[in-house]
Each structure stands twice: as structure tokens, then as C-alpha cells.
């Protein structure tokens, strides 16, 4: 299929206010709780359909599962036999996301080798047939049809593969930066009138008696966790999109936790310092679970685990046990992964639908809208479950249900055609580099993250004294100073961690040794905070990152850790 297939860019729909009434700033139509992909997705959809929306996020955008997934928009291949309709809608939605954010998606071709064994030939036939059926859906997401490979093909494509195989197949996935996808949805929501409160935790959701006529039913009280400022908003509808936190949020509104129950499933990933393969490689863990080693942006990633999680959702981190389990599984087919340098890990908790007595892998990845009218809370909805790939559909389902019922509106969904910010045109990175005197690598990364808005990012901070906006702040990624400023000014970053989530600053091999302090200085300057707070947030970031790296520690990275520690001690002081 033609890569440059044009698609129509419709102008944003005229904003229709559902209720024509002059209101104070703290009155909105809908409050969305949660700044993950479902929260930002639904906030965007509601805003585009003309509602006034306020969103509260306890930590940062993409802090939970959305920013810590495998970073792929799956086409629902695993549902093919049981629910082909789900596969079709997944593929279609993957196609929509590609059209609305073309700069953010990249193809990841996968190899699935089949190890020799008594039933291996039969398995190969079955897998081949399965993917032949899946090929019918591939055009929906611009995927290539699968190929059947013989052992020599596999050896040629990835010479590092070992072990006797009967053959294998290829299939296509699309990679995405989940955190960027959340940020783009959030920005579009804001540009359509939504107000976002990040680092702001909802403390209560109270029913207002007797204001039904004014369309107000709930008052949501929240507290900014950094400034301690209190925020109070009245709304007709409250959407709980807090993923694994859902039961906690529901309890704030006095709702029975059983109605929003999820079974939190922890998944971790190991990040290698470079792309060690050109293809994703499917392998098997010691317990038979399927897992992957795959190239993703400028690194390779190994994932993932799936274990019931009983810990603190605000502080999820990988353990060396989990890392060893993953590396062992990959090493069986790709042994040189043991010599690769792991530069970090990340961990998230899936909001899987609750069931007792099943293995983690058997749990449904479906999503469901829970209407709490039956719990005595009309107008409160919970979005439970779901996956990164289906966020847009999920948001649309919720809006299609809520608008006619609560706002007597039939405004149509436009999220499948309206480009996400920066997505209407992808500028040429080399051209951008030449025009602005930045390196082609920096320009390429910038275009990946910002698409059409990349030139706007480069201008950010140009009026700041000193003319440092094109200095490289993080040499590993690389991230320019202007992008750090942009993340603070335009993307609501307030800490070094926030900037890292938006730009991948400090996530490279040096672990932020070279950039965290500088990033903290810039943030302090932008937000008019005392410089010591910039240092403190740099220290927090360095400590959190060190913790995420140490669990995957290997010989080379150990020396880097010693260097980082020595440097941080010399220039910033002890981490704690």
C-alpha cells in the first residue's frame, strides 16, 4: 500500500456548548479522573463534542500503564479465533491512530521462530493458516501480509538466533510512544477548551442535592500535590478512568468497590542500550508464556511479565527476579542478549478485568463501561480494563453513551479522522536540521515526537537570555533545551520525571548524569521556583532512575553507575 496515502483533514467541528449558561470557571459538564490514555482520550473526545471538561491526574500524564506498556498498537491478532469482530475493530482502530498521528507510529516487523519438536511441523502449518486468516485484516492497519520462513530465512534475517527450528513466520506490529500518545490527546483536549490538573489528586466526589436543574450533580474536590492548593469543580458527569486505581477512585464517590474491581497485573520491561535486532523476536519464557525482544525507537526492549500485584500503585518498580526471568526467556533463542547492556527497566500495572481463579494470562484484556446509576450515582461512569490500542474506540463508546443520555446531544465522534496535534503533516527532519543548525539525529527525534509542531518546539525559549535554546540538554537521546522548555510551557511538565516522560530525556545509558541537574535548572527557571527545587527534582529523578537500572545491572552498566554516583556526589550531593 502507498505509504503516503492521503487522508482528508477535516476542520475541527464548531464547538457547540451543550448547555447555554454563563458559569463560573469551576463549573464544567464533565470531570474526568485519570490522565492515562483512557482519561486523556475521553477528555479529548468529550471536548471535541462540545463539552466543557476538567481532568484530574494524581501523578502525571501516562504515569501508569499507558506510559509503561510495550509501546505497540496491537491489531488484536489473539482474538482472531474467538472474536474476529474484535480483531477487525482493533485493526481498524490501529489504522485510525496511524492516520491521526502518523509521526508517532513506526513499523516493527516480528519473527516467530518455531522450535523443532514432535509437533513443530503441525504447529507451523497451524500458525501459517492462522496468520493467513489474519492477513485479511492487515490492510485496515496498513500491515504487510505475513510471510512463511524456512530455517535459512530465519538465520539470514537474524543471525543471532540459535537452536533447531522448523521454520517460522513474520508478522507486523506498529510501535508507538504511549506517553506521547497521552500527551497529544491531552493537548488536543486543552486546545478544545478542557482544563487539565496534573499532580492533583481527587479527594472526594460529593453529590449535590437539589441542583439537578442547573445540570450539576457532583462536586469534585482535589488537591495539587505539589503546591497543596485545593481545586473544587462542579459537574454533571464524572468519568473514572483511573485504570488500576479505579476501585480507589470509586471509593471516593462512595461507590461499591466491587463494581469497578480490576485485577492489577504487573508487567515489566528491560531496556537495552541500542537496537540489538532489526526484527522483533517472539520467544517463550520458562513457564511457557509468550514474550518478545523487539526494537523500539532507538533501543531494544524485552517484555513482558504478568503477575498479580499487591503493592503501591504509585511506586511500581521492576525487581531483579523479573529481569532474570525475561532475559532467560530471550537467551534461549537469542543468547547474545546476555552480553547486551541493559540500561534500565520500566514497570506498569495493567487494569485487567477482575476474575478469581484464573492465571494472569487468561484474564480478559477487554474493556467495559460501568454505569453507576444502579449504585445510586447517576452520571458517574467507570472505564474498566482496556488496552493502549483500543483507547480511541473505548473513549468513543463512552461518549456515544453519555452524550445522548446526559446532555441530550448527538454530536458525532471525530477522533478517528481529526489529526492529533502535529499529526496533519510530517516535516522532513533533514530539512529541519539544516534550517535550524541542529544535528540530523536531534531533528529526527524531534519530528518523531512533535510532527508538524517540531519547528514550533525549536523556537521555544528563543527569547530567553543567553540563546541556549538549541543547546543539547540530554546528549543520549538527544533532547534540545528548547524541547525541555516546550514540555514545561506547552505540555504541562512540572518535574524532571515529567520532562523525561515527554521527551525521553535522561533515559539513555548515562542515566541522567549529564542532564538531570540542567533540566531541573530549566524547569525551576520556567516555573519560577527556587533553584534548590530544581536540584531537588533532579535528585529525585536520578534516584528513581538508578533504582530502575540497578535491578538489571550488568558489568558495563555497573561501571557507569559508579561514574554517575561519583559525579552526582561531587556536584549535587548524596541522593538521600
Amino acid at each position: 500500500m502507498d505509504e503516503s496515502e492521503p487522508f482528508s483533514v477535516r476542520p475541527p467541528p464548531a464547538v457547540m456548548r451543550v448547555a447555554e449558561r454563563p458559569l463560573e470557571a469551576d463549573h464544567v459538564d464533565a470531570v474526568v479522573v485519570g490522565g492515562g490514555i483512557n482519561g486523556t482520550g475521553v477528555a479529548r473526545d468529550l471536548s471535541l463534542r462540545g463539552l466543557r471538561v476538567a481532568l484530574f491526574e494524581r501523578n502525571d500524564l501516562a504515569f501508569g500503564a499507558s506510559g509503561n506498556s510495550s509501546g505497540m498498537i496491537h491489531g488484536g491478532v489473539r482474538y482472531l479465533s474467538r472474536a474476529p469482530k474484535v480483531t477487525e475493530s482493533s485493526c481498524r482502530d490501529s489504522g485510525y491512530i496511524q492516520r491521526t498521528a502518523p509521526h508517532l507510529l513506526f513499523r516493527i516487523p516480528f519473527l516467530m521462530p518455531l522450535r523443532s519438536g514432535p509437533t513443530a511441523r503441525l504447529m507451523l502449518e497451524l500458525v501459517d493458516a492462522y496468520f493467513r486468516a489474519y492477513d485479511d485484516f492487515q490492510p485496515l492497519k496498513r500491515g504487510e501480509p505475513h510471510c512463511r520462513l524456512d530455517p535459512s530465512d530465519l538465520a539470514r534475517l537474524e543471525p543471532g538466533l540459535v537452536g533447531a527450528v522448523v521454520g517460522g513466520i513474520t508478522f507486523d506490529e506498529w510501535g508507538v510512544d504511549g506517553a506521547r500518545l497521552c500527551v497529544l490527546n491531552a493537548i488536543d483536549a486543552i486546545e478544545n477548551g478542557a482544563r487539565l490538573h496534573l499532580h492533583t489528586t481527587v479527594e472526594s466526589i460529593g453529590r449535590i442535592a437539589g441542583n439537578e436543574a442547573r445540570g450539576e450533580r457532583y462536586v469534585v474536590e482535589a488537591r495539587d500535590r505539589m503546591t497543596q492548593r485545593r481545586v473544587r469543580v462542579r459537574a454533571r458527569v464524572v468519568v473514572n478512568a483511573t485504570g488500576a486505581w479505579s476501585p480507589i477512585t470509586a471509593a471516593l464517590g462512595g461507590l461499591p468497590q466491587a463494581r469497578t474491581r480490576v485485577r492489577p497485573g504487573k508487567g515489566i520491561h528491560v531496556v537495552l542500550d541500542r537496537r540489538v535486532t532489526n526484527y522483533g523476536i517472539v520467544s517463550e519464557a520458562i513457564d511457557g508464556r509468550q514474550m518478545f525482544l523487539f526494537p523500539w525507537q532507538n533501543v531494544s526492549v524485552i517484555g513482558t511479565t504478568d503477575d498479580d500485584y499487591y503493592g503501591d500503585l504509585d511506586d511500581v518498580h521492576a525487581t531483579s527476579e523479573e529481569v532474570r526471568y525475561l532475559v532467560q526467556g530471550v537467551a534461549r533463542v537469542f543468547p547474545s542478549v546476555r552480553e547486551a547492556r541493559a540500561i534500565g527497566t520500566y514497570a506498569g500495572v495493567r487494569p485487567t478485568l477482575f476474575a478469581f481463579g484464573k492465571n494472569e494470562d487468561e484474564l480478559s484484556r477487554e474493556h467495559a463501561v460501568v454505569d453507576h446509576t444502579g449504585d445510586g450515582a447517576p452520571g458517574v461512569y467507570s472505564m474498566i480494563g482496556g488496552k493502549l490500542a483500543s483507547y480511541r474506540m473505548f473513549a468513543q463508546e463512552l461518549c456515544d453513551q453519555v452524550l445522548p443520555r446526559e446532555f441530550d446531544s448527538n454530536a458525532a465522534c471525530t477522533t478517528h479522522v481529526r489529526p492529533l496535534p502535529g499529526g496533519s503533516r510530517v516535516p522532513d527532519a533533514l530539512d529541519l536540521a539544516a534550517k535550524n543548525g541542529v544535528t540530523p539525529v536531534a531533528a529526527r527525534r524531534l519530528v518523531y515526537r512533535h510532527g508538524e509542531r517540531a519547528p514550533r518546539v525549536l523556537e521555544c525559549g528563543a527569547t530567553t537570555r543567553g540563546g541556549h535554546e538549541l543547546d543539547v540538554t540530554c546528549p543520549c537521546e538527544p533532547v534540545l533545551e528548547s524541547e525541555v522548555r516546550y514540555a514545561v510551557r506547552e505540555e504541562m511538565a512540572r518535574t524532571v520525571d515529567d520532562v523525561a516522560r515527554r521527551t525521553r530525556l535522561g533515559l539513555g545509558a548515562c542515566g541522567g548524569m549529564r542532564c538531570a541537574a540542567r533540566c531541573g535548572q530549566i524547569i525551576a527557571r520556567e516555573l519560577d521556583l527556587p533553584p534548590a527545587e530544581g536540584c531537588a527534582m533532579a535528585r529525585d529523578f536520578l534516584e528513581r532512575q538508578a533504582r530502575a537500572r540497578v535491578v538489571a545491572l550488568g558489568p558495563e552498566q555497573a561501571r557507569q553507575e559508579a561514574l554517575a554516583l561519583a559525579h552526582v556526589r561531587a556536584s549535587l550531593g548524596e541522593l538521600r
Partner: protein
Amino acid sequence: MSRHVIVVGGGVAGTAGAITAAVHASVTLIDGGTGASTLSTGAIDLVPWTEAPATAAPLTREVQQVLRALDGYCVPDRGALVLTGAGVVRPARGHDAALLDVAPVASGRVGVVRCGRSGWDADALARAWGTRFVAVDATVLRLDGERVLPDPDFAARHDDDDRLGWLADRLREALARSGGAFSALVLPPSLGVERARADALSRRVGLPCGEAVGMPGGPPGLRFERARDRALAGAAVTRLRDRAVSVERAGDRWRVVTEGGDRHDGDSVVLAMGGLLGGGIEYAPSEAALASVLPPAARPALRLSIQAPVVLGSHGRALELPGSLFGVPPESLAPPFARDALLDRAGVLAERNGAATGIKEGDIFAAGDLVADAPRTWLASLSAGVQAGAAAAGDAAQRAGAVRSIA
């Protein structure tokens, strides 16, 4: 025939050991290349600055001698205050002579030179360091490309007298233009590689001028290498650019075998190859070496990078085999999970004078980051080197004396 000391490692500990030993013995120093000392950023401490006592401990005569030989470091009795690129003003026991010490500049404003170097945001730094610091515009770059030139390459340009004079003129102009009264000027890491040019610049400008603490791999590390080369040549130490692979017994002497296959025999050996950062100690988890499903044997998490009959450990105890084929969980080894972490402390178990424990003849010594439980600081390494060098040579000298008295 004079006794012979072999020093393995050319960082600050090895250099101090060699210079000290060379007073009484002949010394060969085997140096495999860059280590932690080359990556040092110029602020030097005896104990970590975050724990430093208010009054600085006096230095021993031997330590002062080595510092004089290195000729490029200031260790004032009162201690120093240096400025870091992370925006912190911090105490240090001493500093590379190119660094600005703001402790003596008791009053008055310090100008932070706004020079256009990439990554040097004078305004942000002035704001972070405090109200006494004010950004000042000055021309420091002569060519456009110098904006993004790496620190060491840029610093090397000021080895040239004419260029330094040009810089002094520009700084004087800047001071005149600013109209304000300044007590000192601080620049990015830039003042020389061959030797520190801060004094020469200060004389020409008429004010104390110096660098802030930069990133590892900057000019202070290169200046250390140059100062070391001069000091070792001055002390008539024989230098070998090679990597030691083993230390073993050869009759009643020690034999050091190098990667190049050379053998060097000596009466005593000072091991100073650095710790984890310098490369003397390696983190070697069982799983790293193996590609099979299960590694065949457990082994300690750390090992010496060469073969030598010394014992690795920490807290006075030898490293033990872990109870796991995959090795010790890294959480138990490293910060920030573990305070006082093994990776930070483990090394060669040694006596107070650096004599490696468990060696019968007592003539293998260890110094610097290689030693277990020692503070990983520049001056601590230097003074450990002095002690080990003196003990290694003292032993040789005593024996030489004994032989002479018999004769």
C-alpha cells in the same frame, strides 16, 4: 643492587605510591590507561564533602610533598568553596588549580561569564549559586565552532599564551563595560590542559579567575594526567604503558606479568588499579557470562580485574559465594536500594598501611579505590598511595640496609 617496587595503576593512588616509594627504592609503574582519576572533575576531598567536618584536617608532610610534585593543586588549610555546574556551592578540601575557590572572596560580587558556550547557562548558574553571583557578558569564543567544542579541546586552546592574553583582554573589557565592581570571575571548564592557566589569567585580568566544576571527562582529568607525567618523570619512575594481568610469586620476589607478555620482578608490589569505576574491580554476575538456561556455578559478584593473591571483601570480611546460580540480587549490592552498598565498598582487604591481608610476606600493598571500605575520594586515595608507597619502599629499604650491614 637496589630493591625494586612495582606499582600497578597510574591514577592518583598509584602516582602517590610511586613518587613516595621512589625516595628510597627504584620504581616501575605499569599503567593501562584512563581511570577514575582522569574522570575526576577537579574538586578534591579527603572525606565526602557531604560529611566533611567544618575544620579541615591538616595534611601530612608526605602528602604535601606529593601535592607539590604534582604541582597543580591547591589545598588551603581553611578548605575551599567550589562551584558546580549542577548549581551547588560546595565545600571541598582542595581543588585543581584552575578551579575558582570562592572562599577567599569573602565579599563582593562574583561574575559568571556569559560566554555562549553550549551548556553553560550563566544566568541559570548565577541564580542557582546565590545572590552574590551575577552574569556578565564577555567575548570568550574566537571562532563560531568553539561554541560546541568539547570542554577539553576548548581548554587546550588556552594553553597558548597569546590566546590566554586575548581572553584576558576580553575579560578586562567586559569588566570595564559592566561598570560594576567584581571580586572574581567564574568561567566554564576551559583554562588549559597542559597545566592550569587560572593564575596566569588572574594576573592579567587583575582578579581571581577560575573554572566551575564540570562533567567527568573534562579538562581537570587531563591536567591530572599531564601533572602526573611530569611528576613521575621528575621522580625517575620507570613507566610502562601496559596492562598487568597477574601478580605471582617468583622465588622470594613478586612477578607482574603484563598483557604484552612482559615480566617484571620486584621486591614489593603496590596495587592501585582503581575500584569499580577505575577498572580494578569488575562486577561479574554469573549470568553475564553464560547463555544457557542455567549457569553451572555460583561465583562472587565482584572480582579483581587481574590475577593476584589478595582477598576481596568489605567490612573486614571476605566476599562469599552467593546462594544463587544467578548471582547476588543487584538490589542488595548497589545504591539507592542499599546504603553502604557492596558495589561502593568492596575491594582488597588491607591493613592500615595498605598491606594486603592474608599475604604471608606482607609485601603486596593496595591503595586508592581498590581498597575495601576506603572513602572513594581523591585525597584519600592520594594519602593511601603515600602510605602504601612508603611501606613498600620502607620494607625494601630495610632489607637493603640489612644486606649492607652484613656486607
